[in-house]
């Protein structure tokens, strides 16, 4: 017996077979047997009970099919809700960014209107332009280098740990290499970088300035194209990237361009700022209305010069603007 069960390859299935051989659902059989013993041969009818029970049974089955989303795991629902909220927040960010860009151009218009007509103003304006360009505060145009990196062709898209996936570190490597090679302005997929822009990984996406970007990653750098290209190839970043291409199959493409348009960075937060006093604000609005009406040049000139002195006082008392 023991020997038999050992040699029987399906021994472990015996339990299941026994259970199936047994009359598991035998209420009806027992009831029929009892009826036979009692001598009543015709089956009892109970129309209402049968109808109600059938309705119940069918309703439960239908509900089971219809209400699938009710028993759907809570995590999936929560994820969907989070995606909706993230998209709404992203839309709000886009809207605020557009508003910010518009406000910024108004501010710079006002600034140039104020300082336009005096030598001191022109000097301030020139310095401001250079600083703004370096800080990524204004859009810039010029020749430069484009480095495009993309995930390896044989990468498994669903695997966040695939070595063929471009990581934040790789993008940082390229960007640092470009700065090192003398780039004057850098943008990734149209997001301008500043000194404080973060390039980080979140989940499977790379965030530039807390905004997700998708591969291929196009890194544009403005500068002397020939110089940039030769310098970049010689930097440790350029060599490290070559190694990545060799070992993990990332695709990297470097081209020069005679005309690159890099937008202003949107995520620039001032480290410190000064709110102008009431008198300065009054002069500013007077200058704005003067430049808007653009009537007699004499009145515009006088208000602009007075405004520029007020501007100077803000700079000296308020420190960094």
């Amino acid at each position, binding site marked *: 017996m023991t020997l038999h069960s050992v040699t029987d390859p399906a021994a472990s299935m015996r339990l299941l077979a026994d*259970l*199936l051989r*047994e*009359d*598991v*659902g035998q*209420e*009806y*059989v027992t*009831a*029929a047997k009892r009826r036979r013993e009692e001598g009543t041969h015709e*089956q*009892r*009818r*109970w*129309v209402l*009970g*049968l*109808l*109600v*029970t*059938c*309705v*119940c*049974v*069918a*309703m*439960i*089955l*239908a*509900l*089971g099919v*219809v*209400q699938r989303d*009710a*028993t759907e795991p809570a995590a999936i629902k929560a994820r969907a809700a989070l995606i909706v909220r993230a998209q709404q927040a992203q839309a709000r960010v886009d809207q605020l960014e557009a508003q910010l860009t518009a406000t910024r151009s108004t501010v710079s218009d006002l600034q140039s209107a104020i300082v336009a007509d005096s030598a001191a103003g022109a000097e301030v304006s020139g310095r401001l332009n250079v600083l703004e360009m370096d800080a990524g505060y204004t859009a810039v145009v010029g020749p430069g280098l484009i480095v495009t990196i993309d995930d390896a062709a044989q990468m498994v898209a669903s695997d966040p740990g695939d070595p063929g996936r471009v990581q934040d570190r790789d993008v940082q490597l390229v960007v640092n290499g470009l700065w090192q090679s003398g780039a004057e302005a850098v943008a990734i997929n149209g997001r301008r970088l500043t000194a404080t822009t973060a390039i980080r990984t979140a989940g499977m996406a790379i965030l530039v300035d807390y905004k997700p970007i998708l591969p291929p990653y196009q890194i544009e750098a403005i500068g002397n194209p020939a110089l940039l290209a030769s310098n970049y190839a010689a930097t440790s970043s350029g060599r490290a990237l070559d190694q990545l291409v060799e070992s993990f199959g990332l695709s990297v493409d470097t081209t020069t361009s005679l005309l690159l348009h890099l937008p202003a960075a949107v995520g620039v937060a001032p480290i410190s700022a000064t709110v102008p006093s009431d008198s300065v604000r009054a002069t500013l609005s007077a200058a704005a209305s003067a430049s808007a009406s653009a009537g007699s040049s004499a009145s515009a000139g006088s208000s602009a010069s007075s405004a520029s002195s007020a501007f100077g006082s803000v700079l000296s008392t308020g420190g960094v603007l």
Partner: protein
Amino acid sequence: MIAAIGLVIGIVLGVVLQPAVPIWLQPYLPIAIVAAMDAVFGATRALLDDVFDDRVFVVSFLSNVLIAGLLVFLGDHLGVGAQISTGVVVVLSMRIFANAAAIRRHLFKA
């Protein structure tokens, strides 16, 4: 005939009305579904065996659903709800398999 009408009415009601299952009843819905399937398979087998009985059908369905629900309720309060649910589903599935096998023997003689 009556059973078929009842089933159709029930499906139509369930699909059209889509009554909201209260949140406290939702853990019992899967159990109730398995119990309902068990009742249907058992009744079909009894019909084919020519021993179908309205009263047995009604009583066995109600008692199965009630006992299954009660067990899961009790298990929930004892902290073993998931295990008891599994047990109930295994037992009912076993019955469904046995009844389905009997139905298959009837229909296909195999």
